């Protein structure tokens, strides 16, 4: 395990070659290896059925791992499950709550279940943090969908976990509440909680994650610092449609990174928007000097979504 200068472990969750095959033969996880650092927010992006929920469920003890190891805070989730699970809080994707329970009772119950002594002051602080204190004596079934999601988070936080898993926290949630949820996550990070969230929404990963992982078909296709990913997002392309198609990129334009597309009827020029100069003016004048006439121009910016779709379709191929 990696340590920082003060002796505290940097890596809090270590996943090693984790595999899971369901009884029907479906291989949900095909050897995932991943290290998650203390205090970071990791967003796991992936389409439906990619293995995100299976990964979280296996770490948290809801499904049995087929092969491989997971350690949380250095504790193996199978052999030292008590210590490992005590460090984890889980917010499931579905709103799984007992409808007749009062908010305060269900949150208190979870704290007890995770072996922590009763602490009404702590429960009060959590409920206040999630704006649930006024609703503490309401029954779960009387709450709105957004409130129920907050109750799930309150339950997951009730035993003061070091690592919080949020499985699709904003699925089916309106824009305002989504923003609220992001604020809550940011607040938890400030308290030092490590957060792993799965999401369909790329803008969610962009907004709150420190690192982004892309998972598809049970494989982790990429894990990268969000900023490094964003640098790749800075790439832009300019497509020049020509009056007459060419067989090859003209010699005079060889110094540019050009791609011949649409059967020679267009040239694609890639440039970095964050650079001092994009080179567009010089490129267009050289294009004209080379005797090529333009019919049309179009620019396109790659997004995290493009990278994501590209990776997912490569993985599927």
């Amino acid at each position, binding site marked *: 395990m990696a340590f920082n200068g003060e002796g505290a472990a940097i890596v809090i969750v270590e996943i090693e070659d984790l595999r899971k095959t*369901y*009884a029907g033969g479906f291989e949900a996880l095909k050897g995932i290896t991943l290290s998650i650092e203390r205090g970071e927010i990791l967003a796991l992006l992936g389409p439906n059925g990619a293995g995100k929920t299976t990964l979280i*469920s296996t770490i*948290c*003890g*809801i*499904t*049995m791992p087929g092969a491989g190891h997971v350690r949380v805070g250095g504790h193996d989730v199978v052999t030292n*499950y*008590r*210590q*490992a*699970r*005590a460090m*984890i809080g*889980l917010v*499931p994707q*579905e709103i*799984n*709550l*007992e*409808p*007749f329970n009062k908010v305060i*009772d269900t949150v*208190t*119950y*979870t*704290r*007890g*279940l*995770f*072996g*922590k*002594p009763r602490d009404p002051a702590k429960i009060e602080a959590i409920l206040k943090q999630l704006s649930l204190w006024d609703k503490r004596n309401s029954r779960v079934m009387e709450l709105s969908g957004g409130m129920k999601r907050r109750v799930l988070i309150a*339950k997951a936080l009730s035993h003061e976990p070091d690592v919080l898993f949020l499985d699709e926290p904003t699925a089916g949630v309106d824009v305002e509440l989504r923003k609220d949820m992001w604020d809550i996550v940011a607040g938890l990070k400030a308290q030092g909680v490590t957060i792993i969230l799965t999401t369909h929404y790329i803008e969610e990963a962009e907004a709150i994650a420190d690192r982004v992982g892309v998972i598809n078909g049970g494989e982790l296709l990429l894990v990268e610092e969000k900023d490094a990913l964003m640098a790749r997002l800075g790439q832009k392309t300019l497509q020049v449609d020509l009056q007459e198609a060419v067989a090859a990129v003209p010699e005079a334009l060889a110094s540019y990174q050009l791609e011949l597309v649409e059967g020679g009827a267009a040239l694609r020029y890639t440039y970095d928007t964050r650079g001092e100069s994009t080179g567009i003016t010089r490129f267009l004048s050289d294009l004209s000097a080379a005797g090529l006439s333009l019919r049309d121009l179009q620019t396109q910016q790659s997004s995290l979504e493009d990278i994501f779709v590209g990776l997912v379709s490569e993985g599927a191929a």
Partner: protein
Amino acid sequence: MNWAAVWAMYYAEMTRFFRTIAQSFISPVISTSLYFVVFGAAIGSRIDQVEGVSYGAFIVPGLIMLSVMTQSLSNASFGIYFPKFIGTIYELLSAPVNFLEIVLGYVGAAATKALFIGVVILATAMLFVDVPIQHPGAMILFLVLTCLSFSLFGFIIGIWAGNFEQLQLIPLLVVTPLVFLGGSFYSISMLPPIWQKITLFNPVVYLISGFRWSFFGTADVPIGLSLLAIGGFTAVCLAAIWWIFKTGWRIRN
């Protein structure tokens, strides 16, 4: 041991019970009174004594056993099936608890409820007839072990059941007939010889017989055999639950 978790589960289950305390209390009192009206007064008045005990008193242990067994099964099976059904089982599976703690919490609560109902029925019966209890210690032991073992069995049914129909299947089709045919309302010595032998394959006979012995000092089968039967049943159920949590059968995909 994670005692905080055991208490949290036990308390949550008992809270559900106390939310509906009126019906939990009234329903066994009414059904017991009905049994006394039908079996005790209407039919019992035409039956002399059974093994030296008035028929009204004779059926009390069987009546308690009938309710305690069915209540244990339904409380425990519903107790664990409900979180499976509404999805809150995720919390139990991801908590730092082992199978014994879950059993103590859930099965303990189911057995407590059944025990409460057993005591209510005994108290109601005592309003109608004079019920001697010759071996009070053995009576309590049998009652507690029956509540516990049938709650364990109910817990297994709750984990196995995939829907509400399956939840009712074994209690209705297997356990209730076995209890009725296990000598709840008669002594097996009243049966024709061939049926007396067949009845001995019914495990419930041993429980009812032992329980009745603790009241009247007479039994259909030796008391040691009764204790062995209930002890064995408890051990088998515990082993099955240990295996369920070890393998994740029906709960951990």
